[in-house]
């Protein structure tokens, strides 16, 4: 059984498709919607998106594999993305990454066995004035230190 979009998402897809003179241009918006609904974009999801756009699934794969925000595999309930670029590096981001590795017991790129957390290190998030910074799913957190990370993670159920 291939997964199916909710009615609300189907409506959104129609609206998105109407914005562009060529259907394929809607691929990124569609992939964002797909990832939101199904958690990732694996072969199954690639096929559905390809069908909507009238293109081959390999064309979808080409796009998915180019963009770092698109996940071909499921991530944990909370996806922690820590910036490791220069402004954050200068504010000791590496220490925080080490702390998170130890606290969660995983390496960057991995997910905890209970599927609660995925840890990723990323390039500049555009929040350099709040360095060191990170995202948990789509929320930004800045001016981080170990204590703040403890408080943040403790709140996540």
């Amino acid at each position, binding site marked *: 059984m291939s997964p199916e979009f909710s009615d609300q998402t189907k409506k959104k897809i129609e609206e998105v498709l109407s914005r562009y003179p*060529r259907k394929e*241009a809607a691929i990124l918006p569609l992939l964002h919607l797909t990832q939101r609904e199904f958690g990732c974009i694996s072969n199954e999801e690639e096929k559905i998106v390809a069908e909507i756009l009238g293109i081959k699934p390999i064309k979808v794969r080409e796009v998915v594999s*180019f963009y770092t925000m698109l996940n071909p595999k499921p991530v944990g309930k909370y996806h922690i993305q820590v910036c490791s670029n220069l402004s954050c590096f*200068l504010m000791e981001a590496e220490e925080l990454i080490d702390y998170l590795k130890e606290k969660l017991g995983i390496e960057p790129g991995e997910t905890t066995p209970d599927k609660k957390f995925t840890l990723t290190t990323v390039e*500049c998030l*555009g929040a*350099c004035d*709040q*360095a060191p910074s990170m995202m948990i799913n789509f*929320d930004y957190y800045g001016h981080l230190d170990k204590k703040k990370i403890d408080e943040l993670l403790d709140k996540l159920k």
Partner: protein
Amino acid sequence: MEEKLLTRHFDLKNLYKIEVYLKEVGYQAVKRALKEMKPEEILEEVKNANLRGRGGAGFPAGVKWGFVPQDVDKPKYLCVNADEGEPGTFKDRYIMSHNPHLMIEGIIITCFCVGIHTAFIYIRGEYEAIALRLEQAISEAYKKGFLGKNILETGFDLDVFVHRGAGAYICGEETGLLESLEGKRGHPRLKPPFPASIGLFQCPTVINNVETISNIPQIILNGAEWFLKKGLPKDGGTRIFGVSGVVKNPGIYELPLGTNLKDIIFKYAGGMKEGKKLKAVFPGGMSAPILKADEINIKMDFDSLVEAESMLGSAAIIVIDEETSMLDVLKVVTRFYSHESCGQCTPCRIGNSWINKIIKRIAAGGGKRGDIDNIIRLASNMMGKTLCPLGDAAAMPILSITKKFRKEIESYTAN
């Protein structure tokens, strides 16, 4: 304090809502442009204002608009570059989250001037919350009759859409952006043809940065001469400088073009963090050639920085302290570019990952004689030898660091 222009109203509560914006600022510029001015007059004003692009290259906006052919029967497009991927840069985030209607006004006037009826705002994927805010602001503007059909009963139509990227630095490069918007991998195109003649969906396209577009309304309201007085004769207006790194008060500082870099760091951003000493500065994002501590007595405008063999770029100032090893800086720099190279051009794809490998080996204690010359050779082979300027953007920090801090880097290789 210096007079603020773009960020003047940022402290107003709920400025992002159209009721507040209408009350305090107004869509006055749109009204004037659409009702009282001809497109040619607007173009003349923007040209005379010497508004140079705020995205990185500093190309004059009016000149760029003037390149768009007017005698074609294809649609034309505007793409607002809100990808904000240059490390150290966060100014567009402030404009869009605090004052989205200012940018929307700029979009409307730009499109009216160039004869465009569809605009896309290409915003980096991570800025999801800001994308939602923009969509909200756009829908408010439709309701008030500033967007859609027959705007302000002038017969002018315009649709604006927000398009989210998905995490790729190269999609900030204008032709990478176009490819990405068309639904492909963000592989930059060979130029010419330039986007002004063949751009999005093969149609004439204007691409401008968020801050560039947001400057348009005040040029319309106050005129080119006024705008030039706020900056320099060849470089009008202010810049929103983003300061990050080891300073007391990181943040955005809107100041006239030509403000001294030393003042920005030590006067406006509060100087170095307690107990830290200045070592080096990236004056215009991480792609700009680095400046040493004794080179920062310099005016921050396009031409002065070119003279100092660096660049103003996105005006993102990254401040590095004495305790930081330049080898570590190189490690971060080269990791970034090897990750973000799109892979099309061999010098950039192979060069960046090769240099990154050498740096990592040096950092692990395996440095060899000749490493530095090898790095310089590889980086020089990227300069000007790639389809898009990412090759240069990577080579410039690498070459400037190895040149200016050669002794220090050498000390890590000699063992």
